[in-house]
């Protein structure tokens, strides 16, 4: 089923959320797509508890408070959120609309696309060794999609966070698991850590101190992994390597959409914040223009001007009359103010 809306916003960070509001004031409906499992982007994911001091009128506000307030502010406009998914491709239809498809097969049609993706989406951090790209998804798995292929195999899991520990505990039931971490302390939840230590005591898993040094391809569908600890090097053969080194930000499929880029940022004009492709806009940290400052407040300003231009694409026959929220009865109705 293809859903339909006026504008698709990519990214539910603070700027994407404020864009819902600015578009909503102009009667423009939105769907919002984000790779994370909750709105807020970096503010909610990286620094929910850290105070921000440069949001106008907010002397101090945490990333999570700001997110909650922006969600509340956007609520009257009934945005539809598609979380936990990433835009995979976009196509221009004969009707001049965009068809946006996510990696979860969600299809949405809209007149404009607004990219508010910050520094990109979170993707697994990969091992920075050369000549291992061909092993990815074969012997090196950055995510577990199908547990059954791991049954009775020799696995080396690397990391000390929740993903590494949770998978160690889970996969120990079906496979021969070795967990490697660079130190004895783990940042994972204490529960998972004690469970892992118990499994180790019962010899259900092996634990190894060390870091990855080299990976070699073997002819028998296995890989030879060399690990280093205190300058001592050990090698062993495994079927699968599962590195969990946290997440990093990446532009992802956006870099294939034919937009003019400048050092991994999207070039826009400073009147409409439109990209080199008409009806695709970019606002917030992901765009660049002369004098750009990566501040949340700049993104808010960009959202307001972008909305003015989106109006023309969404309602080509209508005239947009500028109104203030303080006095306009029409805007009060939209904001559910009686």
């Amino acid at each position, binding site marked *: 089923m293809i859903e339909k809306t006026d504008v698709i916003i990519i990214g539910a960070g603070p700027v994407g959320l404020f864009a819902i509001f600015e578009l909503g004031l102009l009667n423009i409906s939105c769907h919002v797509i984000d790779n994370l499992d909750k709105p807020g982007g970096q503010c909610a994911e990286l620094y929910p508890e850290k105070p921000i001091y440069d949001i106008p009128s907010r002397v101090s506000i945490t990333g999570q408070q700001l997110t909650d307030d922006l969600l509340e502010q956007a609520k009257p406009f009934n945005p539809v959120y598609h979380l936990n998914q990433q835009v995979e491709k976009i196509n221009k239809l004969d009707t001049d609309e965009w068809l946006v498809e996510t990696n979860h097969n969600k299809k949405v049609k809209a007149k404009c696309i607004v990219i508010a993706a910050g520094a990109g989406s979170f993707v697994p*951090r990969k091992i*920075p060794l050369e000549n291992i790209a061909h092993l990815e998804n074969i012997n090196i798995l950055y995510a577990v999609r199908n547990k059954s292929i791991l049954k009775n195999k020799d696995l080396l899991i690397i990391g000390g966070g929740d993903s590494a520990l949770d998978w160690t505990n889970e996969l120990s039931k079906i496979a021969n698991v070795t967990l490697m971490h660079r130190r004895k302390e783990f*940042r994972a939840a204490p529960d998972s850590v004690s469970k892992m230590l118990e499994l180790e005591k019962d010899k259900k898993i092996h634990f190894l101190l060390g870091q990855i040094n080299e990976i070699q391809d073997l002819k028998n569908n296995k890989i030879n992994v060399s690990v280093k600890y205190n300058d001592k090097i050990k090698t062993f053969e495994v079927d699968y390597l599962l590195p969990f080194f*946290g997440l*990093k930000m990446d532009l992802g499929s956006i870099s294939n959409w034919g937009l003019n880029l400048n050092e991994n940022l999207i070039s826009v004009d400073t009147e409409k914040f439109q990209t080199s492709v008409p009806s695709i806009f970019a606002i917030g940290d992901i765009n660049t223009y002369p004098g750009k400052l990566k501040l949340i407040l700049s993104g808010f300003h960009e959202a307001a001007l972008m909305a003015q231009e989106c109006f023309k694409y969404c309602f080509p026959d209508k005239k947009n009359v500028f109104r203030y929220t303080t006095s306009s009865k029409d805007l009060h109705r939209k904001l559910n103010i009686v």
Partner: protein
Amino acid sequence: MKLKVTDREGNKHELEGDSESTIMEILRDSGLEIEASCGGCCACATCHVYVDEKWLNKIPPIDDDEESMLDQAFDVRISSRLSCQISLSEELDGIELELAPE
């Protein structure tokens, strides 16, 4: 105050800075390739550097947050630090460091 940096190609750079800035900010502002994707709030490990041994006991000790973030870095050594967590000071004038691999 000065900062001596070896980049990933082995080239040496001498940078100027003051105590108002973290070492990450000085590296980034000089145009050296340091990603520092979180902007300096100790939420990533993309400003990873190796501090020259002679300076190790002069820099403030590493805390739990920083140690945890280093779990996301590669080739972590005893001299590994996140440069966003160290401010330049009179005591550190002339500090020598090396950019860790990306």
